[in-house]
């Protein structure tokens, strides 16, 4: 899992570096507040993915969805955890029901803003 996460991050960072020239390991590490050597190890899968806050910061730097990076790191964002903890039975059932649903069907499952009487 650490290797998948690291590989994904490295490829994404290198792709950005090729177009913007401000995404070297050193530059990205500096912007998210870690040592370049640490980020380098993360990218090689030699150390586990960083904390949620660092992953969210990394996602911002790489123009990626934080939830995608968190999932690659084997984590679920704390706000989602809080949502599930508030109504565990409901969300556990919902997620299990949805797990085999194709993407196009899931994408149609959206919450609408309710219109009332005015």
């Amino acid at each position, binding site marked *: 899992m650490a290797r998948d996460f690291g590989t994904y991050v490295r490829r994404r960072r290198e792709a950005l570096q090729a177009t913007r020239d401000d995404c070297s390991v050193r530059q990205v590490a500096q912007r998210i507040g870690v040592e370049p050597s640490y980020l380098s190890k993360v990218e090689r899968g030699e150390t586990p993915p960083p904390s949620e806050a660092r992953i969210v910061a990394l996602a911002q730097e790489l123009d990626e969805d934080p939830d995608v990076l968190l999932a690659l790191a084997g984590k679920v964002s704390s706000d989602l955890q809080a949502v599930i903890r508030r109504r565990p039975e409901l969300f556990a059932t919902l997620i299990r029901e949805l797990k085999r649903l194709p993407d196009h069907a899931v994408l149609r499952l*959206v*919450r*609408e*803003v*309710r*219109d*009332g*009487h*005015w």
Partner: protein
Amino acid sequence: MIELRSDALHFRFPEVHDDAMLRIDFQRTLRIPDDGTVYPLPAGLGRFPLRHVDDFGESVPPSWNAHGGVMMPMYQSEALWLAFESDYPCALKIAAGKIDAVTGEPYRPGLHRGPQDYVTSAQPWLDGFCVGKGMIRQFVAMPLGAGYSAEEQLTGAAEHGGLQLHVYPLKAEHYESIDHGSIGRSRMMRRVSSPSANEMGLAPGGMMRQEIYQDRRPLDHYDLDHGSRCFVHLANSLVWRGITGEAPPTTPFTAEDYARAGIPWFDYYADGEAAVPGSKVLAALKSVAALAKEKGQVREGRF
């Protein structure tokens, strides 16, 4: 259908066309001085937070539950502008306290001309009530019931408050017949910075230049059978905390903060777009500054 995503409303009309979408977000900004001078458009200072009214059904006023929609906190010293983003032509009615922000007439469903009572999605943003050709008075928040809101000045009552939005997409056959290479509007850029009583109503504040584009399409090109509408409730920030348990947004900037931050004002250019003449009804409304003077209320600072 309307979705709330990242503090923006996404109007989508899949039953009309897969491309039929309009995004509206609500930008916080500085209240420009209400001193009779005409100002350029102010920059955005981040989005107002939006929440489903249904998420707080037990703590909002009963009328909010009846209206449905969303709610947002607004400081009295803040102003609001609406940003529109769409590649699919739509017509959008905007009302404050159920007073049409373009004509000053009471809100009514449907689209009308003479005067045009809506804006089109070619309009990149709207900052206030249209009070003359190319001239608007900024949307600023005042407590509902204090007599400042456009609704109270025109109807004498503080019945509705809030902001009402109603969007109609172009009919699919007219969209399909468009030469899409020719209509892509040049994206107008406007600076948007990161954010460093009870109910509220929108009142006319300071003056600024902004044109409401005149619509050249026939009205029957719009799909009036598939409109979507949303009531946006405004809560003062303390009430917001009471309802949601969340801290209110960052204290808004003052004019001095704005100047100190060096954030520029923006001129608005609309080459080749005709403007609607503006509403005499809205032009006759008194600005917050004029009303406060009449009421003999001493007002602190520049606002």
